[in-house]
């Protein structure tokens, strides 16, 4: 029972408490680039989630074999293989989405979330835990993208997933679908998320040291050492 609860919390922490985009602020590039429409954001989130789960599983399974000194190249090779598989599948079966995502599909290889979860979580935890972590983080990424894309497409283009909304169409604000609007909406959504989590007592942001860090739990050892150093420097 206890371990089931723990497993569930591994899955759920990626959605709100450690949301990769809105709390950890990772993967900003695909977030800004693909959220101009709901469909591209959804497909981006889905592809990244699949790659994240697969790469977390494989990296976690190989964690005792991969030498520490060259681990990042190894991770990149594993992630790149899965991205290539996804790319080929999309090109074969969903060419319109393949065209829509364009270069951002290949750029999943260097997505900070995937590499970050490999480095912070998968290399220290079991296969099942890593898969759950990957799934939770992927869903968190997907949901954040969907929220942003919904705001940007509904108010920026007056449509949702390609269907025009009759009344809003004449009041659209085109800036929201462009790059500056992406930054604006991103900032506002993060601000909203901070208000939300502050009310629930989730993430405390009072300290800029380790206590205020959302990655406190996944960051082992190094973090507390730094904290001690900071404390000494303060004295």
């Amino acid at each position: 029972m206890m371990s089931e609860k723990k497993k569930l919390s591994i899955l759920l922490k990626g959605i709100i408490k450690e949301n990769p985009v809105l709390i950890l602020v990772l993967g900003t590039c695909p977030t800004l680039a693909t959220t101009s429409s709901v469909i591209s954001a959804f497909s981006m989130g889905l592809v990244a989630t699949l790659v994240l789960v697969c790469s977390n599983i494989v990296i976690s399974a190989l964690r005792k074999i991969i030498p520490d000194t060259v681990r990042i190249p190894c991770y990149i090779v594993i992630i790149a293989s899965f991205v290539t598989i996804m790319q080929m599948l999309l090109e074969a079966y969903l060419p319109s989405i393949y065209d829509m995502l364009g270069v951002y599909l290949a750029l999943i290889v260097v997505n900070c979330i995937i590499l970050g979860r490999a480095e912070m979580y998968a290399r220290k935890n079991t296969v099942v835990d890593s898969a759950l972590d990957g799934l939770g983080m992927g869903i968190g990424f997907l949901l954040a993208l969907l929220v942003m894309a919904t705001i940007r497409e509904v108010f920026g283009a007056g449509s949702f997933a390609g269907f025009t909304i009759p009344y809003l169409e004449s009041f659209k604000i085109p800036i929201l679908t462009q790059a500056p609007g992406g930054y604006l909406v991103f900032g506002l959504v993060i601000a909203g998320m901070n208000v939300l989590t502050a009310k629930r007592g989730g993430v405390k942001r009072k300290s800029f040291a380790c206590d205020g860090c959302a990655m406190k739990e996944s960051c082992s050892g190094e973090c507390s050492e730094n904290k001690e150093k900071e404390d000494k420097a303060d004295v």
Partner: protein
Amino acid sequence: MENLIVSSSPHIHSRATTRNIMRDVVIALLPATVAAIVLFGFKAALMIAVCVASAILSEFFFSLIAKKKQTIGDLSAVVTGLLLALNLSTKVELWQCMLGSMFAIIIVKCVFGGLGKNFANPAITGRIFLVIAFGAVAGGAHTVFTPEISAGATPLEIIKSGSGTLPSLFNMLIGNRGGAIGETCAIALIIGFVYLLCRKVISWHIPVVFVGTVFVLSLIVKQDLTIALYEVLGGGLLIGAIFMATDYVTSPMGRLAKVIFAFGCGVITVLIRFWGSYPEGVSFAILFMNILSPYIEKIHIIKPLGGIKNVKK
């Protein structure tokens, strides 16, 4: 108890409160406001009303929701709304005016901590938001007196494209030309400038250096006195230099810093006007220098009494 302020010396009593200064700015803007309504008709009055009202309401509701102290009494929201309206042309629709006002107050001012903490001038940023968001809506629209002349293109657009006839210099002075509603009447703006100078609300440095830089650079680039005069009177240079670039919060305090700030504004304006893709660059220039102004201010940091020079560790 709110009137009881505990602070360190010097204890100088002055009438220069935010409210008094903002009231003076509103008074200084009155000639331009009247000119805007006379020149551009009922739509201009409506736009001013919508902008001012939505600026005040945005600040009111933001303070209410964020549980901050209510600050609409200091009149700064009125000034922001009025300035924004005067910087838009009648081509802008009313809901867009409202959106620009809300953006200026909430995103540029309130989110950063309210008046005094905003990094950029809210009215300028609101205008730029509308320019980028809705394309060329902040460009020209003709006045009620000359509907037939050049279909409302601003003098700067005419110079840039090289087609169409420029209004006469006399029309430029009284404001009978295409453009944003408050920027056209040079005389009304200069009356406001003189009023602000007499009331010691602003010093002459920023407006004079800003306009002078644009004039001299235009003269050098175009080698033509008339074109240089059109560059000064056309576009939003006067309203920008007098009312926006002199904003206390976002411009430097020291004299030399003010001159550098204004010179930078002038150079960027000329660069955008002659070589950029927009016909008008005053608002972008002011926004850019707003961001730089804390760094310009650094040349004035003085040693406190009894202090020692900053020694590098």
